[in-house]
């Protein structure tokens, strides 16, 4: 009898899970029905925008920040972009192109959105390039950093509000060459972004007279224990380390860097993703003293940023991240472009995107360069954890 009841319990659980699945699947289609009503009587008419961010998988924390950032901009502007009421359709990018590409195609072909913003994964961004190029729909990349997106594979229809990998790490090179007393060891996760980060850093670092002690790539997403690599750093006699990791690997790397006693003798540098958002919260005091380069920090002193940080905290209960700012700015860019656009076709919008000019962002004003990549200020940040939660204090602007 007990067996029977347990068995039916398992069926109930399965039923619940199935129900939840069906419900979550409905989420996006519910959004669609809102726009079925005729747009007559409204001044600007509705505009449908697709937000493609990871809501599941390893990048989900990044996706949540981006969603909150984009929605914050809408909240602050009465749900309007460029005078149009926005119908925001969110889709789950997942972990890679196998989920991200179909989700984006659904947004464009089925939901008929005017533009898509988001995209965390670079492989997904590059995989989407041809689709958006050919269907003549604007794609605003609000995170993916692959250099090629606004380089070798650039398109009139692809614009980026975040950063390029080589740009972020390249900004740090001269600063480390100046500060480090001897040679520097380079370390990154073994995938495209890691290679680009290291290459960008190495180029500007060596140009500024820096010396490289060694270079190592660790298996991406599979390394939990960095001890063997940390020993190799020690053996190399390097005086400083440059590292690129994100997410769980960043947490483990920075904590173990401290636990194995390297943090006290060998300063750790990296791109900002090493100590950003939830990652920094998990590292806590272990991250104290880590210096990174990024285009944003919650600690920027401008009034624009203070107001943004307060509003974001109020909305989501935690401090904002660079990811949130990138999506917030994507909304700001769309706001300007939609206001300027002469029609609602992709061509019209892209023409307007070229003329949005300077964006008044929490990270500081920036504008698109000729390749549709942000021309922006990078900051040297240092983790301080003396009082309260750890933060990325701004040391100075990087040139």
């Amino acid at each position, binding site marked *: 009898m007990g067996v029977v009841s347990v068995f039916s319990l398992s069926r109930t659980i399965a039923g619940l899970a199935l129900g939840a699945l069906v419900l979550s699947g409905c989420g996006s289609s519910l959004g669609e029905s809102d726009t079925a009503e005729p747009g007559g009587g409204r001044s600007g008419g509705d505009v449908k925008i697709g937000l493609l961010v990871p809501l599941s998988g390893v990048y989900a924390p990044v996706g949540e920040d981006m969603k909150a950032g984009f929605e914050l901009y809408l909240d602050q502007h009465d749900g309007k972009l460029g005078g149009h009421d926005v119908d925001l359709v969110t889709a789950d990018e997942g972990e890679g192109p196998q989920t991200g590409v179909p989700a984006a195609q659904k947004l464009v072909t089925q939901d008929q959105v005017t533009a898509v913003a988001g995209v965390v994964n670079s492989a997904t961004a590059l995989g989407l390039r041809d689709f958006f190029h050919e269907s003549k729909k604007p794609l605003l990349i609000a995170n993916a950093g692959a250099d090629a997106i606004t380089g070798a594979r650039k398109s009139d229809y692809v614009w980026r509000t975040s950063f390029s990998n080589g740009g972020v790490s390249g900004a740090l090179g001269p600063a480390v060459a100046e500060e480090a007393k001897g040679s520097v060891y380079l370390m990154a996760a073994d995938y495209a972004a890691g290679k680009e980060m290291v290459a960008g850093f190495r180029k500007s670092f060596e140009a500024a007279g820096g010396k490289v002690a060694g270079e190592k790539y660790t298996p991406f997403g599979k390394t939990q*224990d960095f001890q063997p690599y940390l020993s190799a750093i020690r053996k190399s006699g390097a005086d400083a380390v440059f590292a690129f990791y994100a997410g769980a690997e960043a947490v483990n790397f920075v904590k173990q860097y401290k636990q194995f006693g390297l943090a006290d003798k060998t300063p750790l540098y990296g791109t900002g993703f090493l100590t950003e958002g939830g990652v920094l919260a998990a590292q806590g005091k272990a991250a104290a003293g880590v210096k990174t380069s990024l285009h944003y920090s919650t600690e920027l002193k401008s009034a624009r940023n203070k107001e943004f940080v307060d509003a974001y905290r109020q909305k989501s209960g935690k401090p904002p991240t660079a990811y949130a700012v990138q999506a917030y700015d994507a909304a700001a860019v769309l706001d300007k472009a939609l206001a300027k656009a002469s029609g609602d076709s992709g061509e019209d919008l892209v023409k307007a995107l070229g003329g949005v000019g300077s964006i008044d962002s929490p990270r500081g004003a920036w504008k698109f360069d000729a390749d549709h990549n942000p021309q922006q200020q990078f900051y040297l940040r240092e983790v301080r954890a003396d009082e309260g939660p750890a933060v990325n204090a701004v040391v100075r602007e990087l040139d």
Partner: protein
Amino acid sequence: MATYLVSVLNGLAMGSLLFAIALGLSLVFGMMDVLNLAHGAVYLVGAYVAVALVADGAGVAAFVLAVLAAAVAGAVLGGLLAALTRATAHHLDQALLTLGVALVVGEVLTLAFGTDVHSIAAPEPVGGGVTVLGETYPVYRLLVIGFGIVLAVAVYFLVERSPLGSLIRATVADRAMVAALGVNTGRVLVGVFAAGAALAAVGGVLAGPILGAQPGLDEKVLLLALVVVVIGGLGSVRGALLGAVLIGQVQALGTALLPQYASFLVFAAMALVLLLRPTGLLPARTAVHA
């Protein structure tokens, strides 16, 4: 040379954790032929118990409390899983059932704790490092090695030397015969399932300061535990110990010596064992059939 010795030490720490985690998986497989794919989820439950109770560096008392709480949670989950799998007749159904449970548990944990990466601080008195062979080494990992040794000895005496142990070994070897002798094998099975799951959850707490807690960690741990079980031999305590120590060393020392092959050394080791000893290095003694 000292560098490699520190790697050996580190491999022992990982091996200790893997032993705690893989033991339950191995015994349950050996006894009931149940491939419990929810084992990693049970581990993750333990890790999140630690996140809830000691995330920001608590004292020793709170850490011990977390270990006990995880053990209870693990045992309850294990008992539940045992009941579920016993009510399901076929192997494939059981595997699917435990996989389903793993997915549901993982999703519930994500709902409760979010998708962020959590780290767990080692208890305050052992949070620092000591100098071992000229390199700083975290004290906590030395304690984990100590725990592994104590666990191995305790399990050895329990399984090899006690009446309860002989019952467990007999049930692994020939369940029908033990039942014919008038023993309620069902109770033995549920007990072992619960104890094994409790150990996995405790492993989740103890591994917390090293591996943290995040969605998806359950799959990585499950995969490693499966490799340990395959290498050691199904249903064998000594096999699980040998497999865990071996995999710990392959991971630590292998990465230090052959960094470019780091990501698949573990699986190369498994493939090698499967080629040479298909039943594992130390399979359970099947005295009845011998």
